[in-house]
Every structure is written in C-alpha cells, then in structure tokens.
C-alpha cells in the first residue's frame, strides 16, 4: 500500500514534468550546454589542512571526443560566494574569468555590490594560470599563497541517473545493485582554487555557493 502510494507519487512527479539531471548538470534550459552551466560545487579541506579548496565544474557530460573543443567563455565569470555571518549574503567573493589562454583570479575580497549583478574586482587580482589543454599534464600556479587550476578533468560526480529516471517514470520501483554510473567516462571543465583559510574571515563556519555571471 505504502509502496503503491509512493510509486504513484513518483509518477505524478514525472508527469508534472520533472526532468532529473544531476547533480546540477544541464539543470535548466537557459544554461544547458553552454559555458554558464555549473555541474557541481565542492568545498573541502586541502592536503595542507590550513587551506580550503573550492572546485566549480561547468559544462558536464563531455565525452572524450568533445572535451578538447570545450572552452571557457571570456564573457562568463565564475564567482564563488562566501557568507561568513549566516545571512546568506556574500561577504567575500573569489572570481575567475578567462582572457586569452589564461584564467585570471580575483579575491577573496568584499564584492562591490552583493546580489545578482557583479563587476570584476580588478583591485583584488590574486593570480592567473594558463588553461590546461585536454590530454596534457595539468598546469597549476601558486600566487599570493593561493593555488589555481583551470581546464578539463574527469567529472568527479557519480550517480545512477538512468535508473533514477526509470523510477520517476514508473518503469522501475528501485535501484539496481550494483548501479551504473551515468557519469562514468565523462569530463567537465574544472576551476580549482586552494586558499589559506585565514583569507576567509574569522568565523568558524562559512556558507558557500557558486555562480556564473555573464557580461551584459
């Protein structure tokens, strides 16, 4: 009975048009398949535990054959937003934007204005790194105590999305064991930044989110 109810619930969700793409890959029509599409965000303690690592991945589900042609866009800025007082408004931003064959980084610094519209904080330039080419050794840079990387990497996300779609569609009632990783063998364009925790304010915890912002 319970199960029937749940399957019914799932079918209703499917009928109402919920298309599940995960984690955030191709999550919305305006960004799907372009440089603004964030697939995943990670924030974790670095190998040096005094540091925090931020990863923002974009342009998911790249097959090996499509990866070399995938590029960052000079009109799309990636912005990491950091709130350190719990009001869900950014107190610090770290910005990354491509010019030529390099990715340029700014911050952590207070944003000019908070919210949906930003300017690049050119007064807080923190470094740059050559964008790594597909198939070559990753190029990293260390400047101002921070580390930078930009380029194609394996998509670290894993999930049996296909089976979940079947469940939502009502053609399956549960996951398989073992499942099948829909994201196996696919790549993303990764931006990785490692920052001394001391540059992220004095709070014990922070709230983090990533945004892509396009030049108007």
């Amino acid at each position, binding site marked *: 009975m319970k199960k029937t109810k749940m399957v019914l619930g799932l079918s209703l969700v499917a009928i109402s048009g919920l298309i599940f793409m995960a984690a955030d890959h191709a999550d*919305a029509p305006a960004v799907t398949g372009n440089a603004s599409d*964030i697939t995943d965000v990670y924030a974790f303690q670095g190998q040096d535990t005094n540091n925090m690592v931020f990863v923002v991945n974009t342009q998911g589900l790249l097959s090996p054959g499509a990866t070399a042609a995938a590029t960052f866009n000079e009109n799309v800025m990636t912005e990491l937003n950091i709130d350190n007082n719990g009001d869900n408004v950014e107190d610090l931003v770290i910005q990354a934007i491509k010019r030529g064959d390099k990715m340029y980084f700014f911050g952590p610094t207070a944003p000019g204005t908070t919210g949906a519209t930003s300017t690049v904080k050119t007064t807080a330039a923190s470094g740059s790194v050559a964008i790594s080419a597909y198939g070559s050794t990753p190029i990293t840079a260390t400047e101002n105590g921070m580390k930078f990387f930009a380029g194609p990497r394996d998509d670290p996300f894993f999930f049996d999305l296909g089976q979940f779609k079947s469940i939502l569609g009502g053609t399956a009632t549960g996951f398989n064991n073992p499942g099948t990783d829909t994201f196996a063998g696919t790549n993303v364009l990764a931006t990785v930044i490692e920052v001394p925790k001391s540059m992220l304010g004095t709070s014990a915890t922070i709230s983090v989110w990533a945004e892509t912002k396009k030049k108007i």
Partner: protein
Amino acid sequence: MKTNKYKIVAMSLLFSATFLISCNNDDDNNSVTPTLDFSGSYVLQDQMARPAINTVFIGSGAPKDAFNTTIPSAMGAAYQGVFQSRLMALNPGYTTNLLGLSAAAFTGVLATDVLGVAKSGPTSFYNGTQVLTGRALADDVIDVELILIFGGPDATANPGLTSDHVNANDKTFLTSFPYLASAW
C-alpha cells in the same frame, strides 16, 4: 554616475598598467601586449551549492531558470513551500528523516541553497560524524540525499530507494592539487 565611470576607467588603467609591467620581459619579441579589459557588469546565469537541489525540487522549464537566478537570501521565502510540495510528491509517506527534520523544516533548510563548510577539521557532506561540513570529492552525496528524502527517521524506509549503489567515482582522485582526476 559620471564619477563611477571615471573610477572604472581609472581602475582599468591601473590594472592594465600592472600587467604591462609584468610583461616587460616580452619587449624583445613581437607578442601583443596584453590589454586586459575586465570592465562591465556581469549578471547571474546559474547558481549552485548543494548537489541536485534545483534538479530534484524545481519543476522543469522556466522555474529552473528562475531558481538559478534567485539569490540565496531570497530563496527561503520564495521556495520553501515549493520544495515541501515536491518532497511530499516524491515521498508521500514522509514524516521525518535521519536528521529528525519535519517536511517543513527539511525543505526550509534545502530551499536556501548554500553549502555549509567548517573552517577547521574534516569536511564532508555526511560521513557519520560530520554533517554538512563541506563537500569532498568522494562524498556519496546522492545516497545521503536519497536517505534524507526516502529513508524515514531511521534510514530504513523504502530500502530500494535509499542508495543508487554507485558508491565511488570511476577514477581515483589525486591526494594533491588539483585533486580531480585527469580527463577521460
């Protein structure tokens, strides 16, 4: 307005100058001097913190774009009710979850899409000890979310739906920067 314009021009000049200085070594070749222009306004296109939030809880089409362009401080008021309806559609039997959260409380947390990160100690989405202290590459975030949505108060409800049985990435992560595995 005019003042701002001048300020931006001045800032751009300053910044270009910095790069000119750093490129002095290029004087003896014909490479183009970088004249980097970072001016202009940049407007929100996509937003993300916790994995799969927009994809699971927001209806397809225009609502997904709307969620992506809502700033986190405005999300709670705009989306808690939407999330709760979606949660109850996914799992009509939902009472509470492993975190002891009611449907209203759970969706209240989820609707504001920010990722809590601890500044000291291990960082994990959930590892039995750490709860939402970050998101590490190897974290099985989907199982965590499935358990919280379908698993009931003790994670035992709907056993067919609480793990996708894909428990790790298809490539080994690096122990050092840039941490992500090489592309396929």
